[in-house]
């Protein structure tokens, strides 16, 4: 729902009256405010624990590790999963379809996918994290160690002894 600060806040106000649920403000590292329903925010274990502790609900949550673009995408996921029921087969199928489209979109931009993964990790959004990591895991399937290193920007620091051990394990590694 919320994509821009001003318009989002206005929309959120309207929705708050309707739904009666609390609204929670999340602030990206660029200072942009995102207003989401509590149900959405509760998708994140980090925010859930803060809300339950009764902390700074009014002041909003600053998220210094997440930029606006990523946060918008994460909130899109949370809205879908936080506000929709998944009791019937149809509803579950709809959510699964959403997940599929969501990840297909992300898959196109690797750097952004990593950002979303990091954000999901930081915010402890179990479903999203599983979704993105699984997607990345699929992409490294069948790749050589060299390709994996490039894909994740891993520095090569194996000693001669390690290499010996790896060779011992598998000559094709």
């Amino acid at each position: 729902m919320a994509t821009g600060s001003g318009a989002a806040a206005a929309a959120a106000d309207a929705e708050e009256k309707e739904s009666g649920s609390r609204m929670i403000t999340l602030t990206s590292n660029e200072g942009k405010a995102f207003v989401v329903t509590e149900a959405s925010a509760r998708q994140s274990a980090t925010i859930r624990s803060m809300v339950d502790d009764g902390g700074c609900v009014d002041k909003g949550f600053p998220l210094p590790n997440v930029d606006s673009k990523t946060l918008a995408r994460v909130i899109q996921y949370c809205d879908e999963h936080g506000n929709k029921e998944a009791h019937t087969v149809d509803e579950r199928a709809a959510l699964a379809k959403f997940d599929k489209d969501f990840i297909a979109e992300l898959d196109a931009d690797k750097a952004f996918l990593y950002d979303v993964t990091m954000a999901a990790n930081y915010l402890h959004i179990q479903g999203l994290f599983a979704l993105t990591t699984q997607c990345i895991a699929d992409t490294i399937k069948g790749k050589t160690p060299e390709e994996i290193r490039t894909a994740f920007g891993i520095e090569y620091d194996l000693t001669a002894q390690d290499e010996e051990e790896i060779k011992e394990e598998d000559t094709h590694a």
Partner: protein
Amino acid sequence: MASSSTLPDDVLLEIFVRSDAASIVRCAATCRSLRRRILHQQLRRRHRAGNGNASLLLGVSYRLRTDLNTFVGVTSSSSPLRFNASLLESFEPMASRDGLLVLKQRVANNAGDGGEHRSNGFFFKGRNYSFNLCVCSIFTGGGDVTTFLPPMDPAMHVNMESHKNIYPPALLARRPRMPVPNSLPAIVGRAVHWLGVASDYWQDGAYGVRVVALDADTAAARTIDLPPGCVDRMLGCSNAKSMSKLMLAASRGGAALSLVVAEREVISVWTLEEAAAAERWSRQVVIARVAIDRSVEARRLYQTVFFEGFGERSGTVLMRIVNVGLVQLDVATKKAIVVRDSGAGKWWGRISGEPESRSTCEDALTGQRPPDLKRVITGRSEPSPAEERQDAATPLVAGLSVAAAAMGSRYMLQAWQAFRTRAAMPRVRRFYPGGFEREMTRREAALILGVRERAAFDKIKEAHKRVMVANHPDAGGSHYIASKINEAKDMLMGKGKSGSMF
């Protein structure tokens, strides 16, 4: 976080855990810190716990050091497993899944002192000429290091008096012989299943055949009755020998136990449904035997079936049918392919002989079989032909399940080869219906041998030889038919008296 393509190690590990075993092995070769963490037991335990994708398991690989003449774990330096590699010198792997490994003693003569050998979480009894099986749990961790085996004497009687803690009283009362020597164990969940025959089988409607399930964690065994009426449908399953018409297999990715039965007229698959109250077998007819063995149509003489293995991933049953050959049956599509004609030389010697069959397994496991490399690989998955090709590129790749699966896929490859190269002519023959006449006539004799009534003598001899080979009692044919064939030959060649002993 600004756009950056580097992920911290713990996130990377989360990714690796969700990847397949082959990728994990390669990931372990990327950098030191990741390598250390991947090889750490914690990751392996997470795999076992089925976090993320349950079908993934890191494999363990052992290698025979020719210089030391012992097996050494390839990754043993960094990840100690509760498995003694020296076991591989005298035991061979039969089945494995989820870190449970079933080993069978290779050499029957285990210069035994009758004492119990305990080592590294397993124990086995040394007995002379015993048939020893051993279940190993190779993962470390609280309480799951249990291992056991029922020591057995040559006659396959389990010495259960000394294992009262393992076998339930009901089982002790029945004194089952178990497991049947040629039955492959099936691992479902944390339990290993065998087929067993009670020694008082004649008192029992189902001929005393039972499934014996041993829970590896609690070391407690229980029996599961075969589906009611299942054995009655089989052709004379009255002793352990004909148990080759039954085969246990793990299905649904190791979640369910299946029983493949060669019934009189169909090959059926039963699956054990774990209902809340009681277990229930559900039956699924896979294929009518007429569809496989067309030659039975006229005479309704069904040939003996020997199950050779079950390829779980490919869903194929591999079986030998006397006078038909090696048949590969796809359970899902119900398609049967004769992989190898029984006429094609003495191929059965290769797979029926126990030692040979196991070495072909190892062959299939390693893909190309380097001389000094033997592997015990544990995992949930098993090779399909396509995967086997992949695995040839990365032999360490874990996730090959041992015996049955490997055999299945190996023969499937061969099957495909044979199927591709053989002539496109269908195996449809026409047969003369009806039984034998009371007194053989020249016409009937000619029909039996498949020659004209006035054929040349060498034609008759040749035909006699061909039909005799196909029906020879030594290879499972019928004596009655063999005598009829001889009689037909004598009749056509006009010598000897034509009276039949029947």
